[in-house]
């Protein structure tokens, strides 16, 4: 099937919206959250109207239907990232919880980190892949270290031998930066980290939605991503983990459904993945995420990645036309995702975004949960335009026109 963006757009009801007194919506904030296609919304509604029940617990027709829909989604998600078994898929509420889960279970139990150990991250991490590790180190006495970045927005690997050592217990790294767009050489880093026995945690929040990701070749031990950025509902995220690790590590949240047997004195825990799914999971959202995976696969992740490469290349070229505009991160569409953050000389990102909004162009202004990487480039904040499978070149043109208006207004 050949990819046609106009056909794709018809699947997304919100793209017909008008904002700010009748301006057509130009949604360039997909790195923040994606829009939802009709098939996903239909599955959600049908679930609630026809099959809603709690899962695993019910000996009745609805309970069976709901359980099947939920576990069916686990299989879909597992296939989507080429996990070796559905049991390696743990459903959580978002990427942030997935990353916190891993940080938490490394705080006690057989693989607990402690004084003398090091946790290694990078300067381009999202706060959700910084703060959990800061908290872990604070509580356990381990030391937090990080890779810097180069002026052109790549990981600075010049001191890799100094950073990845026998003391390194964890390497946590973002696959595709939500600020710079950089695609990081995860396999290479993982290989180095594994040589010293470190665990590799990959934040794939910005990669799994946008390109084919295969955990059998990536080299990660854990992978985190989030449903709302990949055409799925809010309220659901995924932690993939290597089965032996999930089995070995201690529990995170305790409660219903994660137990094997409970007495008042002590409890034993269920087999994975249930051990990490305490309480009623986001059932409808997981089912919706399964539908999102179906949707993305029906279009094809290769086609989506190719479309985004084109849009990103076009956007980078056209942004270069805007005087006084500086892109943070790679300025060519090579090893690069579709999030483009930039600063406009003399105009604060809030003001840029506000004027764009008045033109119907939705972008994000701020530090995008990446304050350290902004400080690295000497700014407090930036404006970010980000694309997805439904983004058109005309929308990039609308962005450029509005940016010229920004410069006129604040010039």
């Amino acid at each position, binding site marked *: 099937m050949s990819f046609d963006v106009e056909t794709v757009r018809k699947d997304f009801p919100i793209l017909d919206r008008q904002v700010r007194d009748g301006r057509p919506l130009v949604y360039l904030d997909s790195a923040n959250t994606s829009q939802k296609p009709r098939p996903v919304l239909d599955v959600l509604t049908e679930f609630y109207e026809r099959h809603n029940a709690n899962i695993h617990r019910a*000996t009745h027709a609805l309970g*069976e239907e709901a*359980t099947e829909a939920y576990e069916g989604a686990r299989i879909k998600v597992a296939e989507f990232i080429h996990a070796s078994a559905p049991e390696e898929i743990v459903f959580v509420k978002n990427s942030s919880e997935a990353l916190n889960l891993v940080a938490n279970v490394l705080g006690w139990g057989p693989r607990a980190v402690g004084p003398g150990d090091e946790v290694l991250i990078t300067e381009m991490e999202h706060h959700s892949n910084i703060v959990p590790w800061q908290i872990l180190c604070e509580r356990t006495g381990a030391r937090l270290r990080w890779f810097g970045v180069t002026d052109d927005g790549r990981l600075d690997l010049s001191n890799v031998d100094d950073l990845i050592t026998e003391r390194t217990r964890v390497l946590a790294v973002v696959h595709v930066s939500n600020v710079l767009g950089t695609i990081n050489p995860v396999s290479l880093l993982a290989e180095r980290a594994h040589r010293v026995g470190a665990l590799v945690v990959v934040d794939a929040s910005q990669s799994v939605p946008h390109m084919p990701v295969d955990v059998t070749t990536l080299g990660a031990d854990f992978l985190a991503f989030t449903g709302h950025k990949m055409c799925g509902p809010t309220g659901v995220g995924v932690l993939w983990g290597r089965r032996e690790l999930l089995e070995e590590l201690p529990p995170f949240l305790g409660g219903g459904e994660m137990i094997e047997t409970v007495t008042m004195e002590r409890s034993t825990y269920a087999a994975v993945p249930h051990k990490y799914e305490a309480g009623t999971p986001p059932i409808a959202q997981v089912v919706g995420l399964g539908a999102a995976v179906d949707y993305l696969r029906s279009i094809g992740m290769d086609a989506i990645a190719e479309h985004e490469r084109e849009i990103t290349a076009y956007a980078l070229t056209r942004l270069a036309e805007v005087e006084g505009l500086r892109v943070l991160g790679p300025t060519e569409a090579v090893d690069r995702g579709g999030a483009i953050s930039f600063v406009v000389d003399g105009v604060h990102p809030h003001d840029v975004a506000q004027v764009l909004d008045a033109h119907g162009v939705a972008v994000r202004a701020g530090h995008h949960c990446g304050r350290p990487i902004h400080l690295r480039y000497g700014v407090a904040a930036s404006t970010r335009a980000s694309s997805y499978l439904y983004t058109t070149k005309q929308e990039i043109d609308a962005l450029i026109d509005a940016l010229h208006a920004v410069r006129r207004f604040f010039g």
Partner: protein
Amino acid sequence: MYQEIILDHYRNPHHRGLREPYDVEVRHVNPTCGDEVTLRVKLDGTKILDVSYDSIGCSISQASASVLTDLVIGSEVDDAMAAHEAFLALMQAKGAEVGDEAVLGDAVAFSGVAKYPARVKCALLAWMAWKDATLQALARHGGEPAES
């Protein structure tokens, strides 16, 4: 799903009760309902001399334990493992298969249970326990001289 054969085994379970001698004893639990089976295996080389059990559980889990013991006591481990495989496949077939009576005996009566995912765990409880115990017993005999 409640075939006459299942109800018969439920009302008059075969080989029930824990017996001596045995090589290995295991206890398996169904976390959802708290049902439990304690099961013992006695091998002689690769021959299954006895399988005895005690359990709390529903008609399906009781009957399937009874059917299991009928099938495996006195047979070779290999044949019993093949029956186990066949039963597992039957239980995962969602009711689309009828099962091979030559391999499964009375256990073919459980094909209807496979339509009810929540009950599949009940039907498998004793079978999983038996496999676990048998593998442990084999490993033990393999590692050190058989005690018997």
